[in-house]
């Protein structure tokens, strides 16, 4: 399957334009499934970030991901940010919606986190 045939909201890891991209680009649950469940995409199989869930913040390095279950929001994974640095006690993160950079990971209104260590691409 070519990228042009992929359409919008499909599995896999590709971005051609706003109407031709994988769901994982904008939808946190899709990105989580893609990485954690090693989703087998029909478009560009084998491409995309690879990683696994870890259960301690000390396992996180810059480039790893933190998914949040946000209070009052409907998904289990509502939001995702990327670790950019460690401060003395906690990871600092970058993300969109809202735009933050070098921001304390625990400043979001969340009820649960899902920590993902990225191992490769």
């Amino acid at each position, binding site marked *: 399957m070519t990228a042009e045939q992929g359409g919008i909201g499909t599995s896999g890891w590709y971005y051609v334009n706003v109407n031709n991209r994988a769901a994982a680009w904008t*939808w946190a649950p899709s990105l989580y499934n893609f990485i954690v469940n090693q989703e087998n995409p029909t478009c560009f199989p084998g491409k995309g970030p690879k990683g696994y869930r870890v259960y301690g913040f000390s396992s996180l390095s810059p480039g790893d991901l933190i998914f949040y279950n946000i209070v009052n929001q*409907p998904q289990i994974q509502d*939001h995702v940010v990327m670790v950019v640095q460690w401060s003395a006690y906690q990871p600092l993160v970058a993300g*969109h*919606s809202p735009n933050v950079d070098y921001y304390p990971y625990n400043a979001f*209104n969340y009820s649960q986190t899902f920590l993902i260590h990225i191992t490769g691409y």
Partner: protein
Amino acid sequence: MKHKNRLVNLAFILLAFMLMSSCSMVNYEKNPVMVLEAYFDALNAKDFEKALDIDLEVTNRSLSLESLKGLDASYSDLRILPYTSPNYEIPKDDRGDIPGICERYVVTGQVDYPSGFGVGPSGEFSFLYTMINQEGKWLIFESGTFTKDSCQRATQMLEKRNSE
């Protein structure tokens, strides 16, 4: 007597005219809920320029226009509620809204994307908006997950932007 009646009539007409004028001179501004309603009305009417005028978050207008046109979303069954309403569980360490200056709202409803998928799948949605009062006019400061210091960040960032 006739002359006096005419004067009284004239006085009434003048009074009515003054009242009407003063009413139309009231600087009537939309509250945050009305602004969000106007925002979604503009999106539904495909008047994306108007929608972007409401949104302070836009950094690249042409790219945002292209994205909105591409998504072509339709919204219905809208409910706009303050985040501070009893409907929502707000974490204890949330520093809260600054009433009249920065307020947060939750918009829920149904979204329909022609392709079935936009930011997420078609169907129920729940979007979060931080609204800011800029010189008497409410605007969308940012959309997305609320942080514990959403309004403090918003006011600081707006001050920084205005000083640049």
